[in-house]
């Protein structure tokens, strides 16, 4: 779309939502904007085909689609197209339509004309995922897509079925070893993974600190900052064919001596050489640190290289609860004394200025981790919901064998809570969604980064999430901060856990194959099921009981049966669930994002490429009150709800804190303390709502 003279009518209409008449927004303008967008833009710019056959053949012959004829007859494909188009799908808001056509619809090579509508994309994804299972499976996938019950993550939804496309997987993580080969491997991986469209996250805690020894000569090491600079440039260079900027994150253990410098890189007025603009940063916080802060005891940062020389292992791999005292009492370990509470406040200050860092609570992530018998979770990803085992690979010089260990690969998708609940198809939708995610894992082989490929091949991890929690609650007149919301979440996410496990067990049974290491997991010894066989999770409040009417809720007896079945057949996926923040995809689904509260009744959305006004789904004059902004909510209550969800999720939940300018560093720090005590595994961004000066003047006057 090129801007020349005169504004585009649909953008104008979408902006006119904000004009108030008698104190009400002009919500109807949004529907007019959708209509204008289709009539004046989409329809005029869509390639027309006389018949379905002509369309399919053209797309295949012109190298847009893979050759679906290798897997389906024309008649089979026609069935799927007919099924999907007969559903008469309509976009509910301008944002949904605009986002789909801007970012997902297939265009011709000139970039001018659309070759797909929403329905076409749904069919292409369904056919592609079902190409080895047949047309019946394609219809199943198509149904959950077009009903908007389940939405695959962007890489899958964008790329599936296209001949020239990126990978279907979204998310990669890896460790970096403390030597040039290890760093080189990481930079190389970053570039390759970024170029295929992944968000990449690295744990840089193993890198020796600034001023440590290199080859025994003290004072030579550059620390973590120079590596972050290289990473930042690498991600910005290797974007996905210029389609979207590369994105990456790095995590540092809070006991690493470079931690203060690491946090300072996001400050506004800092030297260009040490400023990190586009790379995301996260910190790894062991329980020990929170304990030192609580007791207000002296806290020592540790020089990682001295630990390696003394003990032969990385300090980041150690259990700090056990090893911290040993390390600080050992005179050969170099350390630096700081005040833990002051560091918490510094984190809060950095968050107020930049939204960063993410916080990963290491022991919380490992406390109920089912694979503790295999390894530990050490860090998280770009959106703080992926939490899996990892171990640094040993990369050698040319001619010598590398020892490749687990990186992390994860593909994601989200249930739409509102449609799944309304259609009362939880069991079926979750199982079909798990199949769709499994196909993506099966089909993925990131050969160019062997540690990632190994993890996918052996662990088959996926991450099923959920969106539209606030939308669903509001639509049913339930306040997000209420006890009823807790009640709903406790049952809903228990069911997600149950049916995803059952699906994973069924797949293992069919294929006679489990993930590698299953026998050492808490699934195999049955301890994972203790929380479910010992109590019921059915709803307790009347309002929520009504919502689940006609839905079969798994009981403790069902869980006991599942436990036995898992013991017998194993499960296929090492990890199954992760609640992603899902931004773009929630717009297409006309849903509220993830399990987070909304930010505004009409959201002002800035992307790199547009500003759009998005009235919240289901918003009417009757339920206005239930669409309370996250900025006006008690964050403690938000965290409480997330902690209930987290109980049932084997990986993490992307959790955003919404604060106001007037919130102090102490207020923020208290959120971290509370989140940690609640057992949350991570905190994602902190967003801040600015106070405008009008507000200030009127308050003081």
């Amino acid at each position, binding site marked *: 779309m090129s*801007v*020349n003279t005169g504004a585009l009518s649909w953008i104008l209409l979408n902006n006119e939502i904000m004009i108030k008449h008698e104190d009400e927004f002009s919500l109807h303008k949004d529907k007019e904007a959708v209509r204008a967008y289709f009539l004046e833009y989409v329809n005029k710019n869509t390639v027309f085909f006389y018949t379905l056959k002509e369309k399919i053949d053209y797309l295949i012959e012109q190298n847009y689609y893979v050759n679906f004829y290798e897997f389906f007859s024309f008649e089979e494909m026609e069935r799927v197209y007919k099924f999907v188009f007969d559903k008469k799908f309509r976009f509910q808001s301008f944002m949904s339509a605009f986002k789909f056509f801007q970012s997902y619809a297939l265009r011709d090579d000139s970039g001018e004309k659309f070759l797909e509508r929403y329905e076409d994309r749904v069919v292409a994804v369904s056919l592609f995922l079902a190409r080895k299972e047949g047309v019946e499976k394609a219809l199943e996938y198509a149904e959950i897509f077009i009903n908007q019950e389940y939405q695959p993550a962007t890489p899958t939804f964008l790329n599936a079925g296209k001949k020239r496309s990126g990978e279907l997987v979204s998310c990669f993580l890896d460790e970096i070893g403390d030597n040039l080969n290890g760093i080189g491997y990481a930079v190389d991986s970053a570039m390759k993974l970024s170029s295929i469209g992944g968000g990449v996250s690295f744990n840089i805690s193993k890198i020796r600190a600034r001023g440590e020894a290199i080859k025994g000569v003290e004072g030579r090491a550059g620390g973590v900052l120079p590596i972050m600079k290289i990473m930042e440039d690498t991600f910005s260079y290797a974007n996905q064919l210029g389609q979207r900027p590369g994105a990456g994150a790095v995590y540092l253990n809070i006991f690493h001596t470079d931690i203060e410098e690491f946090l300072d890189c996001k400050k506004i007025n800092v030297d260009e050489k040490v400023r990190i603009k*586009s790379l995301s940063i996260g910190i790894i916080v062991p329980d020990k640190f929170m304990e030192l802060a609580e007791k207000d005891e002296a806290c020592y940062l540790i020089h990682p290289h001295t630990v390696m020389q003394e003990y032969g292992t990385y300090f980041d791999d150690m259990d700090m609860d056990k090893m911290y005292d040993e390390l600080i009492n050992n005179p050969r370990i170099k350390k630096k004394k700081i005040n833990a509470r002051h560091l918490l406040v510094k984190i809060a200050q950095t968050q107020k200025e930049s939204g960063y860092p993410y916080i990963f609570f290491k022991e919380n992530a490992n406390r109920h981790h089912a694979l503790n018998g295999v390894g530990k979770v050490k860090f998280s990803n770009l959106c703080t919901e992926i939490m899996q085992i990892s171990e640094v690979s040993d990369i050698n010089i040319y001619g010598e064998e590398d020892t490749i260990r687990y990186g992390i690969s994860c593909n994601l998708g989200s249930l739409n809570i509102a449609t799944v609940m309304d259609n009362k198809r939880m069991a079926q939708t979750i199982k079909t969604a798990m199949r769709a995610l499994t196909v993506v894992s099966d089909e993925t082989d990131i050969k160019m980064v062997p540690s990632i490929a190994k993890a996918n091949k052996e662990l088959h991890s996926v991450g099923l999430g959920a969106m539209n929690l606030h939308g669903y609650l509001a639509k049913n007149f339930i306040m997000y901060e209420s006890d009823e919301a807790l009640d709903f979440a406790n049952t809903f996410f228990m069911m997600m856990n149950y049916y995803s496990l059952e699906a994973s067990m069924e797949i293992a049974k069919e294929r006679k194959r489990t993930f590698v290491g299953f026998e050492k997991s808490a699934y195999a010894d049955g301890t994972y099921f203790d929380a479910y066989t010992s109590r019921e999770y059915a709803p307790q409040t009347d309002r929520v009981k009504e919502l689940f009417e006609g839905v079969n809720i798994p009981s403790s007896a069902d869980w006991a049966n599942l436990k036995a079945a898992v013991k017998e057949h194993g499960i296929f996926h090492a990890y199954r669930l992760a609640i992603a923040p899902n931004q773009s995809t929630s717009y297409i689904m006309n849903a509220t994002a993830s399990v987070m509260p909304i930010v505004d009744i009409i959201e*002002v*959305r800035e992307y790199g490429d547009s500003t759009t006004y998005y009235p919240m789904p289901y918003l009417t004059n009757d339920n206005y009150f239930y669409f309370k902004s996250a900025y006006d909510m008690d964050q403690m209550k938000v965290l409480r709800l997330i902690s209930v969800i987290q109980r049932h999720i084997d990986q993490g939940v992307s959790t955003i804190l919404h604060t106001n300018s007037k919130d102090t560093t102490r207020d923020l720090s208290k959120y971290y303390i509370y989140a940690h005590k609640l057992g949350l595994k991570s905190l994602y961004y902190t967003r*801040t709502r600015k106070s405008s000066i009008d507000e200030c003047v009127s308050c003081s006057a």
Partner: protein
Amino acid sequence: MSKKFTAVNWNTPENDYALLFWEQNIKQFWIDTEYIPSKDIDSWKRISPEIKEAYKKALGGLTLLDTLQSHTGMPKIIDHITCLQNKAVLSYMCMMEAIHAKSYSTIFSTVSSTAEINEIFSWVEENKHLQFKAATIDAFYRAIDKENPTDEEVYMAIAASVLLESFLFYSGFFLPLWLCGQGEMVASADIIKKIIADESIHGIFVGLIGQDIFKKLPNQAAVKERVIALLHHLYENELKYTEEVYTEVGLTADVKEYVRYNANKALMNLGFDAIFEVKQVNPIVLNGLNTETTQHDFFSKKSTNYEKSTEIVHLKNEDFEMDATVNI
């Protein structure tokens, strides 16, 4: 008898707004190099030559106004303000004006060639409407460049400054906001939005100081008439300037409406009633002005919402005593 020098004492408030504006200013602190206008290079290539031309002129004009404000306006006014805390806030604002003036260059140097940039700067020097704006405002600043100007002279300089900040800038801001609302030159618009957020508090603050002085004037009606006359004088020129910059891109009518809208705002900052009838300001631009929180995707753009944190509050023992049991 030698003059007594007084130290600024922030422990005793001199009025009820200086500290408030000081803090808000500090919170809003930013520098141009935090932003990444290079992301706009593709967009720059995409937009039409006419729009490019208008964009460069708009930014060139803005640079001139910010230069005038930081080099002459603010320093001259500071000289004649008696409240030391107000002086401090004005000095800070003066420094920000210099950052604004430089930040346009940051955008220029990212998207334009040196030859094009030089061309624009000489256009700024040659354009009679732009020069007229600068000269008109400058005359009021120069009038107080002496030992003991009258209250009226100081007031008029302040009023001129408010007209500059709250009114004359906006014909230039229109285009970046309008483009940004349609997804073009978005990263550069981040910078423009920071400038607008600053200018809006500058206009209010200087306006409040002006109102304090206005109250002391014996001939208020006559002075008010002078301000309105000055506004009309500048307004006529602004219409011509708008035509010159925006006619080729077909936005003249919209920009003029926007100019009237902001003229009214400038008057309100000075404590006067609006005089122009404004029907409907282009909603894309109006919405772009809303500087409250917007949602954004951290991976694709930098946020304009974060502020420098000025207040550090430490943790106490009781902050760790929390009940984290959830009964469900």
